[in-house]
């Protein structure tokens, strides 16, 4: 049986609480994610600059922790930062983390 925080992690949030992908300060790509599933899909397609911009600002982990309320995934994303990944490697590693967590939660 899923506990409360795991259920929350699979929810779809309102437009106001969605994650908006930017490539730099104030430059919005037009891509957003309102659920973990959508977040996973966007990681696969969004401009790579956006992943680099948000990862090193800590935006992903903040959104995952505060909005999706998944502290475990937030911590794992935070652990990627010191590795200084960029480009395709960053996309693959981030995607693996999020896809793995999504699969775990979906199967619970």
């Amino acid at each position: 049986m899923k506990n409360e925080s795991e259920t929350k992690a699979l929810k779809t949030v309102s437009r106001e609480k969605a994650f908006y992908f930017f490539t730099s300060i104030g430059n919005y790509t037009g891509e957003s994610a309102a659920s973990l599933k959508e977040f996973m899909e966007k990681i696969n397609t969004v401009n790579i600059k956006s992943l680099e911009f948000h990862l090193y600002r800590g935006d992903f982990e903040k959104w995952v922790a505060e909005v999706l309320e998944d502290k475990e995934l937030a911590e794992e994303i935070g652990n990627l930062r010191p590795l200084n990944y960029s480009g395709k490697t960053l996309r693959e590693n981030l995607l693996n983390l999020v896809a793995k967590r999504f699969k775990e939660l979906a199967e619970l």
Partner: protein
Amino acid sequence: MKVKDNSFSLDSTDMKILEILQEDARQTYTTIGKRLGIAHSTVYDRIKRMEKYGVIKKYTTLIDAEKAGAKTITAIMTIITDPKESEHVAEKLCKIPQVTEVYTSLSEELQIIAKVTAENQETLHEFIATAVAPLPGVLRIRTSIVTKKFKETQPLIVNDPKRLTPTENKNKSREGENKSEKRVGNKSAKNCF
């Protein structure tokens, strides 16, 4: 020039009064009258009429924020919108205090151009991410942060220095005289702010 609701027309004297007020709205009716060679009562009547019909919207102050000690940054946002939602996005932006100017523009796509002020880059980004990007119909946003301001004035509706006659130019040097006279743009003349 006709006022939009056709209530009355602006003639060349009205236009000259507007031009002078745009240079300095605190000039007295007498000073303006002298520059144009007309009675101060005529200047008064015409200004009151232009205020009544909304040609003169308000008297305001152009402040140098930097000198006033305000530590803010200014950015220009270009917002690409869904054409169906463009008006709504523009209207919503107008209601946000941090957004100081909003325009729509048509190039390859329908765009909204808006000027925004923020305390720093982080608050600017936070503001755009939480208040602008989520607006329905916003497709993309490009933001340029202003690094140096070279000029900032109100747009002149009439901008032809040759239109001032020699008499008017000569009278320019007399500006500042009659300090005790009632100024056009002071608070007692109209609630400016």
